[in-house]
């Protein structure tokens, strides 16, 4: 995902000298290449997320297009007031990328998990919120962030995500991409957990359920029309996210269904808790009910 992010950013930085790559002592492995190719377009602020975010606002006001990059948790949770007051309130072109989102940093525990970023950011006016699931979507997110006026947040995982969409992928305008067609149960997934949701939906299909899978790439603005179209006639809608079930994708779908009507909803994510356990992402997902098997079981139970 980082490679995809950086190659897309370098393509843009080549064309537009106002594009800046800002980091806070947590880079990508491609930073030196960026610095070599685009000297004067990269700044390392050191371990200072509030400063980096506030300075990005100052740069944007002065005509630059800064792309701020660091761990999602430090960016969103620590610098939130700067994102709110300096960037979103002023509706300026600061692009923010949170890396290692969800449970990606699985060995270090909740201090390094980014599992409430969607809920807190979603409440901010003017902000566009993108949540790519694969490298191709990450690259598209960078391009979309550049083309979208105003502030944009891109939520990026860090788990060697496999590609679902192929080289020639262009994201749907609605922000919803159907991965598996199915009508009885429709599963909506966002971010890198797509791989687990994909397996879970296949398990459902193997057991005879006509289950579908939709990847949600853009969380805000959310296309509720396209969502309602996708769930027409379904008996159950499921949200799957490496995030709290409060205010994230599950929250978005709840709000749409409560206001506009629609099928019953099962939210799968962290149910008002910090993630338990340490170790491989695979294991931490399993211990928190977010692996394919647990997702499958939760959906089967909800269908009863």
């Amino acid at each position: 995902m980082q490679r995809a992010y950086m190659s897309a950013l370098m393509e843009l930085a080549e064309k537009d000298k106002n594009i800046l790559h800002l980091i806070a002592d947590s880079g990508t492995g491609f930073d030196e290449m960026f610095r070599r190719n685009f000297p004067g377009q990269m700044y390392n602020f050191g371990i200072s997320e509030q400063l980096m975010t506030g300075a990005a606002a100052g740069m944007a006001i002065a005509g630059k297009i800064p792309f701020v990059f660091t761990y999602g948790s430090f960016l969103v949770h620590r610098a939130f007031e700067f994102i709110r007051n300096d960037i979103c309130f002023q509706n300026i072109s600061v692009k923010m990328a949170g890396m290692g989102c969800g449970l990606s940093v699985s060995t270090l525990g909740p201090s390094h998990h980014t599992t409430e970023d969607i809920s807190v950011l979603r409440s901010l006016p003017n902000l566009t919120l993108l949540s790519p699931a694969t490298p191709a979507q990450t690259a598209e997110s960078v391009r979309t962030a550049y083309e979208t006026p105003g502030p944009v947040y891109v939520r990026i995982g860090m788990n060697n995500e496999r590609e679902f969409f192929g080289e020639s992928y262009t994201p749907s305008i609605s922000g919803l991409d159907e991965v598996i067609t199915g009508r009885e149960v429709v599963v909506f997934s966002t971010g890198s957990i797509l791989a687990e949701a994909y397996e879970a939906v296949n398990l459902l299909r193997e057991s005879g359920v006509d289950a579908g899978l939709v990847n949600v790439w853009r969380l805000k603005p959310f296309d509720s029309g396209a969502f309602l179209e996708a769930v027409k006639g379904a008996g159950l809608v499921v949200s799957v996210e490496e995030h709290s079930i409060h205010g994230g994708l599950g929250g978005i779908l709840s709000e749409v269904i409560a206001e506009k009507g629609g099928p019953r909803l099962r939210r799968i994510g962290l149910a008002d808790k910090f993630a338990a356990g340490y170790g491989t992402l695979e294991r931490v997902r399993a211990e928190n009910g977010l692996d394919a098997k647990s997702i499958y079981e939760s959906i089967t139970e909800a269908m009863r």
Partner: protein
Amino acid sequence: MLNYDDELKDLRRQIFLTARKGGTSHLASCFSCLEILYTLYIRHVMNFDPENPDMPERDRLILSKGHAGLALYTVMCRAGYLTPEKLATYLQPRTELGGEPSRRDLKGIETSTGSLGHGLPAGIGMALAQKMDAIPARTFVLVGDGELQEGSVWEGVISARAFGLDNLVMILDCNGLQKMCTVEETISFVEWRRKFEAFGWSVDEVDGHNVDELERVLSTGNVTGLPRLVIAHTVKGKGVSLMENNPLWHFRMPNRKESKIFAAELGLTQEEMN
């Protein structure tokens, strides 16, 4: 033409009357940094053009201590950024002018402030952008001494030196007071010069109510490679004895009896007070 003492008194009268009509303001904070703002705008220490507020080669000011927004709006009105009619809408229904300066509401406000500790990071971003574009202009950030308790200020203090921002000037409105008590009572060890010099800044000290002195110091450039702190020693509430150096007046308007003292000391007539 008014001499500057009269002009500053006139500005204090206008701030007070505008605040009174609007209902409230952080008057003591406004009066503390008025001479600083006056020097930057009316003595033209800053290069700016109200007719062309986005002029790239302008100097930029960030009022990080946003509570003094009414002082900034009033001085900017005198400088030509807004009409007296617009200034008079302060806190009136559907106004664009509120208690904290907002970029949404007035051309010439470089960035919206209000929550403390945001001005220096934004100023660092602007100063870096000025350098990237080879614009020979400066960025001024006006902060309060209580505000220096915010951690984000110190992230900026470290970084401004690391980036060699010799186009950045932070002016410290050093009145020794914060909302509840004195700065010294709060943090005990108040040694700004030593602290900033230890962080590699160059430091000057001035009488923050002496416009000539402010002009002399603020007109000179930074030492090459160094960000600069100008400690302006000020009196919170300057100009009204009742308010001066008294934390009680952080966010308070005078009652009927106190208003008489304000009127007398600011030179307001009974008619102007009605």
